[in-house]
């Protein structure tokens, strides 16, 4: 057990238990707060994977924007869905069976693939992944077209969201 593996196991346990609480808690505000814990755990995984930029983006976009949007939406739609009643529909056991089956299937598929073992390639100490990513996103040989398409999609989605949520008199 190296320190990295211990950190991995602790973070995975915290993230997964927070995720289970997100999908089972009755109080929907608490579910949103557990979602923040879970997203933060995923940010720790990005740090472990040498993707520091993604850890920052995860905190800024997911925790800073998306989770706050969730809390606002919960507060705007709260009155009718009280926290006392059951929060799961009557087929929740079927959902549990499907999820467990999918997990078992994925593990079976992974165990039959030989590529999962082995050490990661060593990152060269002078490699600048953030610089590489930034240049790849704006260079015509790289990913400038998908990047611009994603930004157009984001603008269209946000304008659409404002239009849909607009309160007409």
């Amino acid at each position, binding site marked *: 057990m190296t320190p990295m593996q211990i950190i991995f196991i602790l973070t995975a346990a915290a993230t997964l238990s927070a995720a289970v609480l997100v999908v089972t808690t009755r109080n929907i505000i608490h579910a949103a707060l557990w979602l923040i814990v879970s997203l933060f755990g995923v940010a720790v995984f990005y740090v472990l994977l040498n*993707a520091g930029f993604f850890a920052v983006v995860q905190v800024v976009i997911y925790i800073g924007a998306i989770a706050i949007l969730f809390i606002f939406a919960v507060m705007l739609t709260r009155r009718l869905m009280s926290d006392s009643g059951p929060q799961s*529909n009557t*087929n929740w056991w079927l959902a549990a069976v499907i999820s467990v089956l999918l997990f078992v299937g994925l593990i079976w598929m992974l165990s039959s693939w030989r590529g999962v073992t082995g050490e990661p390639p060593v990152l060269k100490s002078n490699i600048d992944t953030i610089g590489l990513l930034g240049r790849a996103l704006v260079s015509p040989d*790289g990913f400038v077209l998908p990047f611009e398409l994603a930004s157009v999609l984001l603008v269209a989605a946000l304008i659409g969201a404002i239009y849909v949520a607009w309160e007409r008199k």
Partner: protein
Amino acid sequence: MMVPLSWYLIFSAALFCVGLFGVLSRKNAVAILMGIELMLNAVNVNLIAFWRYRSPSFIAGQAFAIIVFAVAASEVAVGLALIISIYRRRNTVVADEIDMMKF
């Protein structure tokens, strides 16, 4: 000795299945969107783990993950706007009760 790739894949499979359970079992439409967010995060962990373990000099894995981030942000903005609009017109956020296109 670093963490093997299989640990990341098992973790993200578990996170994906927890999110799927939330999507399938929750009544509240906002909670369903939270399950979708967990699933998208599991996908992103997978993408970054494969980038780090298989091809760290080739940046396409990270670029793909950036696109997933943008799509997740637009998905949640549109989804929550729809839920708020439905709440104004129909006074409900229970997914079972939203069964008419026009009210």
